[in-house]
Structure formats: structure tokens, C-alpha cells
């Protein structure tokens, strides 16, 4: 971070220690029988990272680790409890207060289920043209229509005219997800958050969507935050990978480094459980005892310690810091 600043390069996105806590309305019963009133759910609990222009950051973790909440915080669908998000050096808070429309133009999101992304009563043409109109692009509708057709054809939705009059339910999941990506990218945002964009789709068409997402992001020099639970896919698309566990980043580094040489015991376990499609390859998955915990009653020490195969008594007492191991590698474990 400091290195980049000294070069005079401001990262497109800088996240400083953001937290998002929810308060539970019901009483919460902990595993050891205590009853908590107004328990805090630490969905995102102190996440910091920077993202440069055109970079792809993959975020992986089990369900409930807060990766989707992080995505929603980044595009400001939710306000963080504390911490700040800087977009090209300016606070997202100020940007959104000054000009909400312009903020939405710089940050966009792609959701998991394309069928829920669009209004089912709007035709594809209306979906695109409304967006363009709102952002005052194009003189009139026929000019906007031309822009849309050009965009659709650029991603292989040919003939584009035949798609314009159709409604979302008339398209396949893959086609609709392409349209969703296209709409998010149309205004050339500087940051796009893609939350599990291919997990709804069939394996046979995932590759096209992934490649299209990657190519459009690189073309516009857009920074991409790719949230997924699928490690292989994330490694394929990402420049860097951040591994999350219970609302915190436990390991971050270059994608190949993290994948081939994981250091944090949780990353090791995750990666060893990632099966190959080659039946000849041997894999010895690391077993993690217990269930993935809920981020309610956080342990005092390392959050992973209760399931960690390497845990020592001191791990349960003191919290761990995300330590810098050089070359952009960060690990939150005292044993490394």
C-alpha cells in the first residue's frame, strides 16, 4: 500500500478496516448453553485491501464467511458499521452524498442469479435503454439502440435485434448472465463486484461467461472483485486471491502463489479439499473437525483455532494480526 503511494499511483479501490455488524433481534443460544441478548453478528470484521486499475481480486471462503456482505459493502448496497472505502482516493461516503448517480456509474455489481437481476416485465431493449437514458448517454432512443446492438454483438449475442424485443424469461441463464455483465460494464465503471456470477450456470457454459467477464474487464481496464466458493474458477480468473474466514481475510496474495503454496492452515485445508476431475490424481484432503462456526459469539483468540489442526494453546488466547510477508502476501497466523 505504502509502496504504491510512494510511486504516486492511487489505487482504484482502497478498503480500510471495514466492519459490518448486525444486531440479532432474537435471543441467541450459544453452543455451550449461554443466552445472548442483542448478539452482534460480525459478518465483516475488519477487512482491508487495495485494488489497482484492471486488477482481478478473487474472494473465496465457505458460506457464511461474509464474502457476499463484503461485496455489498463495496458497491454501497449497505453502509459499513465502521471503516472506510476510498474510490480513486475519495471517500465513497462523500461521493455517494454528493452525486449518487455518478457513484453508481463508477461501481457496479453482477449478481448470482440473472433471473432475479432484471425486472421480468421489461424487455431487454428497455433494460439497456433506460440505463443509458438515466445516465444521459446518446441523443435519442435510436442512437441508444445502436449502442446497445453494438454491445450485444460484441459478446456474441447475434443477431442482436432478435434479443431486443425479448423478455428475461425467454433467454437461457447463460445468455441472460451475459446481458447482466454487459449492463454492468456498459457505463465503464472503475470497480465491478461479481458475486458468484457462474455458480447458477451449467458447467458446459461457465467457461464462456468467465472468459467474457475477464475480457470485458481487461478491455475497459476495470477492477474486478470476483466472489466465489469455487477455488478452481477463482484461480483461473484472478490476479490475486483473498481467503476469508468468519469475516476476516486470513490469507491474501498472488493467485498462483496462494493456490500452489498455501500457508494459512485454513487455506491449506480448502485447497486440499478441491477435488480434481482426473481420477488418477491422488488427493489427501485435510479434515477440519466441527462445523463452520457462526460469526456471532467470536472466540477471543484466532477465529480458526477451534478447528485448526495446528492450533496451540496460545492461539486461543490472543487474536491474530494480518502480517505482511512481502510481495503482496498477507497471512493471519502466528504459526507461519
Amino acid at each position, binding site marked *: 500500500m505504502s509502496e504504491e503511494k510512494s510511486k504516486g499511483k492511487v489505487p482504484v479501490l482502497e478498503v480500510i478496516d471495514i466492519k459490518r455488524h448486525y444486531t440479532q433481534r432474537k435471543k441467541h443460544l450459544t453452543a455451550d448453553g449461554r443466552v445472548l441478548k442483542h448478539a452482534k453478528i460480525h459478518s465483516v470484521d475488519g477487512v482491508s485491501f487495495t485494488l489497482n486499475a484492471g486488477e482481478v481480486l478473487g474472494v473465496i471462503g465457505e458460506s457464511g464467511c461474509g464474502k457476499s456482505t463484503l461485496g455489498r459493502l463495496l458497491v454501497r448496497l449497505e453502509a459499513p458499521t465502521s471503516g472506510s472505502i476510498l474510490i480513486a482516493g475519495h471517500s465513497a461516503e462523500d461521493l455517494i452524498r454528493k452525486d449518487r448517480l455518478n457513484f453508481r456509474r463508477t461501481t457496479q455489481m453482477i449478481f448470482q442469479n440473472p433471473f432475479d437481476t432484471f425486472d421480468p416485465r421489461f424487455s431487454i431493449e428497455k433494460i439497456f435503454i433506460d440505463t443509458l437514458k438515466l445516465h444521459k448517454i446518446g441523443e435519442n432512443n435510436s442512437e441508444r439502440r445502436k449502442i446497445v446492438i453494438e454491445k450485444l454483438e460484441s459478446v456474441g449475442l447475434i443477431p442482436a435485434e432478435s434479443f431486443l424485443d425479448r423478455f428475461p424469461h425467454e433467454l437461457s441463464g447463460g445468455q441472460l448472465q451475459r446481458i447482466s455483465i454487459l449492463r454492468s460494464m456498459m457505463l465503464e465503471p472503475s470497480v465491478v463486484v461479481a458475486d458468484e456470477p457462474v455458480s447458477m450456470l451449467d458447467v*458446459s457454459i461457465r467457461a*464462456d461467461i468467465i472468459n467474457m467477464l475477464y475480457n470485458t474487464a481487461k478491455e475497459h481496464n476495470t477492477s474486478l472483485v470476483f466472489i466465489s466458493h469455487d477455488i478452481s474458477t477463482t484461480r*483461473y480468473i484472478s490476479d490475486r486471491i483473498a481467503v476469508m474466514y468468519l469475516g476476516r481475510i486470513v490469507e491474501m496474495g498472488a493467485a498462483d502463489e496462494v493456490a500452489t503454496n498455501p500457508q494459512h492452515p485454513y487455506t491449506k485445508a*480448502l*485447497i486440499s479439499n*478441491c477435488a480434481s476431475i482426473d481420477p488418477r490424481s491422488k488427493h489427501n484432503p485435510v*479434515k477440519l473437525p466441527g462445523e463452520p462456526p457462526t460469526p456471532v459469539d467470536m472466540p477471543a483468540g484466532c477465529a480458526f483455532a477451534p478447528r485448526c489442526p495446528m492450533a496451540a494453546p496460545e492461539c486461543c488466547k490472543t487474536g491474530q494480526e494480518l502480517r505482511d510477508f512481502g510481495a503482496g502476501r498477507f497471512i493471519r497466523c502466528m504459526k507461519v
Partner: protein
Amino acid sequence: MALLSIRDLSVTYHSGTRHVKALNSLNLDINEGESLGIVGESGSGKTTLIMAILRLLPKGSVEISGEAFLNGKELISLKQEELLKMRWEEMALVFQKSMNALSPVHKIGVLMSDIYRIHKPEVSKRDARRRIEELLELVNLPSRVYDLYPHELSGGMMQRVSIALSLMFNPKLLILDEATTALDVVTQTQILEEIVALEKKLGITRMMITHDMSVVASTCKNVAVLYAGCLLETGLTQDVLVEPLHPYTQGLIKSFPVFDNDTHQPLQSIGGSLPDLSSPPPGCIFEPRCIKACDMCRESMPRLKEYGQGRFAACHLAGGEINV
């Protein structure tokens, strides 16, 4: 002898003027004690296949033809009373979403002992409870789960409850319909390992439906590739996934991101989408999406041909030669 043999099974859904052929004269055998993985994209008829042999499809709008023999008994024409007896006891099914399969207003114990005592009415409540606690232990759940409601369990625990339910009467055939798809990788591997260990211990034959080929690669002995209701390739997993004969299987493997290799091989999709099964193409069912299709493929659907022991593929061009 095969434990389950399916002969010429076809399923057609009728709706108004459309007749969708979801399964097209399928032939499949599973030997006792073996495991078969069925892969294919959504809409390829995987779930229809098991719903047909378990007779869970709605009557009226569905037309089923063909035969399915489980241990010599024909399932498609079996009487309702006999069928009810066979369910759970000889064949059991684990669904994808246990949260929807378990009753939210009953405790796990009540739910399980209900099923147990329907099949064995003479058993006392206390004995039923003992048997159920045994089952819970078998799938690595604490016995306190007996008194919990489904919403108090995590996804992995609920899936284990479903598996415990299916093992209640030591069924000969266990069918898993995307049973681990909704789980996290770590939990998924653990549950799969447990299932494999249990089936060795109890001598269960397993049929597994999934779209995740890595699951098949690590847990199944045989694999069958289904596409648009047709069986395109089948054989030992180690043969089919390493040297696929059918272009569809080859495409599926190419579109799967490989974690192990360090070279960044670009991922490739299979272009196009499933054909409309109410008006399928005249030739090979995969021809519209096949990159190797030739004139012959547009004319006739290739039949399954044997390529070595237990290895079948339905392609005119399989094995590098033209087969008529």
C-alpha cells in the same frame, strides 16, 4: 448379475400440444456393490431418470415406457402396495436440499421414528429410538440431534440426517440426487468420504447424480454421461474421464477448470444450448452443438457401440473412425 438394470426406459412429458421426450430409450446396468455417477447438464434428464424408476413422477401428464429391474423385480409396473414396501427398504433416495426434505415442525427423532415404525409397526418406541441413535452415530452426529428441529442444524448436519434416514433399513440401492452440491467443499469431501466408507461396510450399491465431475472422479467406479435424455457414453470412470470418446464428454472436461496444472490453459465452453426436446434434431442429438459433426451426424442418431469391456459410446466418429 446386475442389481439394477434399466431397459429401453423412455419418459415423455405431455403438456398441451407439446410432447417433451425427457428420456429416450435408456439402457443402463449397475452391478451389486458398485457405484455409478450420472453426469450431465441441467435438463439432460438425470432427475427424471431416478424419479421414473422410483415411480415418483406425477400420473396423467407423464408417459413412461420400458422396464427397470431391481433385484429381478420390475419397478415400472409394480403394484402400489409392493412399491411402498420397497421404498426405504430396498431403495432409498437422498435429495439435494435436505432443508426442504425434512419437516420443519417435527423434531428429527419424531420424523425418523415415524418412518421406522411405519415399516416396522411391531417395534416399541424405545427400540426405535435406540435404532435411530445408532443411525445418527453412523453418520457422525451426536445423539442430541434426536431432540432438535431441522432449523437448529447446519446444512451439513441436515444432509447427514437425510443420509441416516436413507440407511435406516440397509437399502440395497442408495440414490443420491445432487446430495452434496449445496455444501461447502470441506463438508462435501467429509460427507462423501463417510458415504464411501458406509457403503463398503453395509454393502450398498450407489447411484449418484451430479453435475460436478470432480465428485464422480473421486468417488464413483463407473460413470454415465447423459445429454438431452440420451446416454452418450458410459464406462469405468478412469477410462471415460481420462480418455473420453464422445465429443460431448470431451467438451465437458475441457470446460472444467483444472486446479492442479500450473499452465493456464484457456477454458472452453460447449457452444449453444440443449435442443428443444419436443422437436429434437433428426440426426444425432448432440449434432447442433458438436464441433466434429459431419453429414452423417445430421442424418441418423448413432447407436451405443461397445469399445472394450463395459465401455460404450454413442457417436459415429468415436475412436477416430466412422461407424455406421
